[in-house]
């Protein structure tokens, strides 16, 4: 079998005395999606920030395409070009139009010709039904549209791996669906993804593997049919029961 896109082993992360993540090990083979579930504060976002080298780690190894990116001598800017990340709070640049948001990195980082970058961005926008918003500024878009633009922006770099950090948590239920269907499309197209989410139904649909994080540890790990429907660990059962009660399953 070929090298997985992402391999994490023995990852540990703490903020001061707070150990946020420990003994985190998992693999993400190409064209698969690994979904992290767990209550707020369980370390999902921190894990994604560590993979993207936005936060340093305290121990362990992160390999991207077989190359160790947790090595401090690595050029973090170059690694991040291979990783797309989408945030809970969209983080579009408010002073740029949708088009400029998307083409900023291809033009400035990859040095792609401006016209070429624009036509590539137009192709992406029309694929996700947002072409008429190209010249709008982010504050004119709905939350769902903003988040879809943020996803397109990270796709413009043709990333090897897409990190999605609770991309629907800031949206109302109607808008959640348009964003989730975008992610489902990406999955069908074979994008390799690591996803942190509170949407269990969505996790069931797109995940190849589901990891349940509890207090910084992976408590349960396996295909969605097992972890989400027949969890063995009592903490997973408890979490899913509470999610169920909240009506999110």
């Amino acid at each position, binding site marked *: 079998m070929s090298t997985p896109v992402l391999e994490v082993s023995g990852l540990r992360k703490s903020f001061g005395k707070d150990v946020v993540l420990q003994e985190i090990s998992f693999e993400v083979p190409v064209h698969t999606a690994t979904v992290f579930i767990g209550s707020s504060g369980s370390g999902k976002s921190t894990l994604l*920030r560590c993979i*993207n080298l*936005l936060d340093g780690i305290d121990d362990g190894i992160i390999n991207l395409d077989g190359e160790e990116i947790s090595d401090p001598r690595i050029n*973090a*800017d*170059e690694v*991040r*070009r291979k*990783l*797309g*990340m989408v*945030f809970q*709070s969209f*983080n*579009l*640049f*408010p*002073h740029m139009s949708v088009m400029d948001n998307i083409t*900023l*990195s291809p033009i*400035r*980082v*990859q040095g792609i010709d401006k016209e070429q970058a624009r036509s590539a961005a137009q192709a992406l926008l029309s694929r996700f039904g947002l072409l008429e918003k190209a010249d709008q500024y*982010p*504050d*004119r*878009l709905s*939350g769902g549209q*903003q988040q879809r633009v943020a996803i397109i*922006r*990270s796709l413009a*770099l043709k990333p090897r791996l897409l990190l999605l950090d609770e991309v629907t948590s800031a949206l109302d239920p109607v808008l959640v669906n348009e964003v989730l269907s975008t992610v489902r499309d990406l999955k069908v197209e074979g994008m390799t993804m690591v996803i942190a989410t509170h949407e269990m139904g969505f996790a069931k649909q797109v995940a190849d593997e589901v990891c349940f994080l509890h207090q910084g540890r992976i408590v349960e790990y396996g295909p969605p049919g097992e972890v989400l429907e027949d969890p063995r660990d009592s903490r997973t059962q408890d979490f899913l029961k509470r999610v169920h009660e909240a009506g999110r399953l």
Partner: protein
Amino acid sequence: MTNPLESTAPKGRASSIGNDIPDWQPSQLELTRKRIRREQNRRNILVAVGSSFLVLGTLVSILITSPGFKSLSDTFFAWAYGFEILPKVILGFTTNLILTVIAATCVSIFGLILALTRTSRSPALTPFRFLATLYVDVFRGVPMLLIILLVGFGIPSLRLRGLTNNVFVLGTTAVIITYSAYVAEVLRSGILTVHPSQRAAARSLGLSNFQTLRHVVLPQALRRVTPPLLNDLVALIKDTGLVSILGVTDAVRAAQISSSRSFNYTPYVMAAILFLMVTVPLTRFTDRTMRRAIERQNAQGLA
């Protein structure tokens, strides 16, 4: 009893929303409310006009009936004399304007360098960061008049070759030194208000630290601090009058020369009017920019 919400127009379909807007006619109730609002409005205007006349009239009459009013208006508001020396004061005022343009340009550059140095995290810049902090602390904490005196009289007394004795150059330098410290702090606060998540988003797109600053952080920071920067510009324009103490013939100095000959203070009033003619429109413009910035920020909060 009739329904007060009954429309004055013939009834359309009550169910659809939006499509029937052309058919909409205000209800009786709304027409009554409109009349009441109009009356309230008229009363408010009357009250405003009345109170203005009362307050301003009282102030003016106190001034005019005061025993010294005649001599005051003779020494401060001798308009005929004022217009006679006006060309000299205007000529002096052009010096203030030139100084403002030169200083504002240099201050923007130097202030930005200071702000960027103070906000940078690069280990190589550590000594510069320390120096920039020291610079801002010192020059923000000392009266500008002192800096002007120190630069204006101190530098020539060093008798170093190549250094100028030109009071205009020295005065401008002192103004630049002081205002760079003010502007650096305004810019720095703007840079710090850009949310860290913006930086994270830019970095995760692979932008380098410098590219993030150049394309994401600075454009947003500058937009936010435009109103306070314009405030500083207004302050800079009037503070250029302080260089007159070195003997630069600006508007203040020109007025001083005229008034010391005639023992009449009207030239000072003329100089003041000249300053106001520039600063008041600029202040209004600043107010408008500030209001727009607030509106824009609120719009963003809603999104």
